[in-house]
Each structure stands twice: as C-alpha cells, then as structure tokens.
C-alpha cells in the first residue's frame, strides 16, 4: 500500500462541482495553501470545480489560499465560525453583495460537528449557543437541569489538510498549533488529501506520536517547503497573479 500522489494537480483532480470540501487550518496556521492553489489552477484552466461548499474556521485573509478560492467565485457557501481577518475584503464584499452564503457556527460546535461527522454520531447536545440567535430552530432539551441545543454532524466529500510528516500508509504528524481542525477533518471526509512536508516509510514515524491514523487519510502529496499564508500576505501576494 502506498497512498502517495505524484502531483498537487492530481491530488485535487477528484473534486467536482457542488461538492462539500473541508479545508484545514486556523487562519494561516495549518492551512494547505499549495493544495488550495492547485484547486484554483484547475478552475482557471477548466472552469471547474465550482459551486463548492467550504468548511473552514475562517473566510480567508488577503488574496491567497482560501481567500483566493473565494475570489475566483468557486465557493457558493461557507460554513465557518469567524469570517474576519486582517484583510477580509474578498469574503466581505461577496457576502454583502449576496453572492456567497454563510452558515455561522460557534467554533467549538464547528469542531464537534466535524468530529461527530467522522465518528458516525449524527447529532449531539451542547450548551453552546443556547438562548442566542444561533440556536434558532434547533431542538432544546434539559439535562441535569441545564438547557442544551441539538447540533448535527458535518461531513464532506473531500478534506484538504496540511500535516508535517506522513508515511505512505497515511499516518500523520502535525507541526505545533498547525494541528487545529486538520485531524478532525481527516475523519469527516469521504476522501482526505494531506499535503505533508515529507513523505516517509512506514515505521519511520514512532506510532506513539501519530496524531491522525492512516485509516482517515486516502492520499498524500509532498510539499517540501510549504509557504505560510502570513508570509504571502506580508508580501501582498495575489493568487493566481493578478485577478480581474
């Protein structure tokens, strides 16, 4: 078994119009920038995929990565907790123009919905959001005298994640706080593609340090020196080059 994929282009080739795609990261940390840019490249060349529902904590920053994907018009709906950033103009303009749908989810609920999706749990109760606008329409039940609201799982067709090491079985480690949503999204997607800094042989990762077991990962592509969104934004980068 070898889950290695030879190129970024091939790694994102299965994503089709209308799919739900989970994209890992918290801001730029743990964001699979190269995979996202490969998806943008495919769209620029072929006009597909489009009409995507994207699940991410944020809504992109500047004009690269997720913001670049949104700026291309490839995303029709975003499910996130915090669609603000240092430079949120790409999402903000489309949202205020009514051209992109937003499902706002409290951050811990977002994480748990994704975890539940990966764990085969269709719904769960949480105290988060009770009595607020974000609880409207959701069933309420009391447990031990406290009210909780019911939230549903989140699943996806694809997850694009960023990890540090990956062996050819798909076992992954992460770098510091770049872990964030990535291991949860690995579980919740039909197909998870991980970009990793280095692909190693089975056995090269100490089993005690594996964070995402390979059963949750279907494909790996090596990006030896991944760029950081923050670095691109500090250079005022735009992907792919000048847009419009």
């Amino acid at each position, binding site marked *: 078994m070898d889950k290695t994929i030879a190129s970024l282009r091939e790694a994102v080739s299965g994503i089709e119009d209308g799919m739900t795609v989970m994209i890992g990261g918290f801001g*730029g*940390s743990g964001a699979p920038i190269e995979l996202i840019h490969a998806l943008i490249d495919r769209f620029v060349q072929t006009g597909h995929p489009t009409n995507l529902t994207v699940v991410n904590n944020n809504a992109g920053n500047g004009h690269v990565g997720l913001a670049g994907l949104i700026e291309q018009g490839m995303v029709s709906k975003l499910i996130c907790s915090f669609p603000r950033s240092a430079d949120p103009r790409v999402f903000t303009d489309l949202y205020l123009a009514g051209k992109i749908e937003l499902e706002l989810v*409290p951050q811990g609920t977002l994480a748990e919905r994704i975890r539940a999706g990966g764990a085969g749990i269709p719904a769960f109760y949480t105290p988060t959001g009770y009595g607020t606008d974000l609880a409207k329409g959701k069933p309420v039940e009391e447990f031990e005298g406290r009210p909780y609201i019911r939230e549903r799982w989140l699943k996806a067709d694809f997850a694009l994640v960023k990890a540090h090491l990956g062996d050819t079985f798909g076992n992954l480690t992460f770098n510091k706080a770049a872990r964030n*949503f990535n*291991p949860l999204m690995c579980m919740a997607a039909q197909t998870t593609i991980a970009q990793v800094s280095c692909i190693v042989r089975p056995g090269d990762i100490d089993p005690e340090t594996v964070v995402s077991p390979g059963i949750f990962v279907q494909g790996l592509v090596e990006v030896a020196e991944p760029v950081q969104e923050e670095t691109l934004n500090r250079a005022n980068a735009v992907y792919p080059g000048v847009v419009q």
Partner: protein
Amino acid sequence: MNKLNPTQIAWRAAQDIADGAYVNLGIGLPELVARFQPPGRQAIFHTENGILGFGEAPAAGQEDWDLINAGKKAVTLNPGTAFFHHADSFAMVRGGHLDVAILGAYEVAENGDLANWSTGPKGVPAVGGAMDLVHGAKRVAVITDHITKDGNAKLVKRCTLPLTGVQCVTRIYTSLALIDIEDAHFVLREKLSSISLDELQALTGAELHVVGAVADLIVPDV
C-alpha cells in the same frame, strides 16, 4: 472623570487568578491580563486553536506562523506546553476544565447575560469561540469600560444586543468598579474612591446592590 485605563483593568483582573489556574483570555483587551500575574503564581493559558501553556509574543522576525494564538498573533512556548486538536480544545472549554475565562463585552445584564459578539444585523457576523467559552469555564469574568464611548451604560438590566450566552457572567471588572453577579443582581465589591456610589449608580443601567463593605478599587499605575 478619573477612571482606570484598560491595562489597569487587566491588572486588577489578574490579581484574582490563582496559582495553577487554567485560563482563557479573549482576543484584545483580555490578553493584557497575562502580563500581570502576581509574583509566585503561575497560570496556564489556553488558546482555542490548540495550545496550553503559551508565552509572550516573540521578537519581530522570530515569528513561527504555526505557533499563534486565537487572535492569530504569534506566541512563544513556556516549558510544559501541550498541543491538541480543536475537538480536545473545546472539550477543555465546554467540559468545565478551565478555571477562568476572561472576555470583553458590549453589554452585561444583571442576570449574567452577555452580549459581546454582534452589534446588530449590519456587516458580517463572526462568533469564534465566545459562545463556547461562556458555558464552559468555572468562572466567566468580563473586563470592560464601565460605559460606552457615547456615555451609555454597558452594565444593563437586560441586554439589547444579540446574546453570546445567558446567565453566564459571574464577575465584571470595569474602569470604575468591581461587580459580582449574584442571584441576578449586580453586587458592588470595589469602586474607585474618587467616585461616589450615587455617581456610579447613575452610570449603571441596573441597580447596584451593596452587601457588606465596598472596598476601594486600588490599582497601580501600569
């Protein structure tokens, strides 16, 4: 009017954090609290994106962009740090494992309701982790100016802005006073000696109750 500056409010809040406490500080003003841990006490700071035990900001040019806090600012690590994914991070939050969460506020009501995530239907709504934090930490404290920039009360009878959580706040550190919420009442614990109770009441949107002595709110120039 004499009042505490934001750094001084943060200083006062820091004095109530016990040695060994696990603490989450909201983005912005609450982050200042970490600077003022009293000597001999060590709190462990939690950030939603998966770090327990982070430290101060690195020097410019030394940032590691995989090592950030919930405000997306670069941080450093203290000895004894742990990393974890987002589901574990919010298990710490909702599961009652954090000792204190300190948040900012637009409005706090006398029954403990908090509004701090939305100023109304205009613009792009964003909630982040605030709704989770208010229902998880053992103690939810707010640090805030006592009144808005326009001079309106932030401590109110009932919140008018969209709620973050219901009956969740237990203590409020303001630029003028320290107020606990007990049995759906504001209970005044400390106030600046330069302001009278009547003056403070006039700047507060619900009745201030006095139970026992009101201490002077004394904060150094920080």
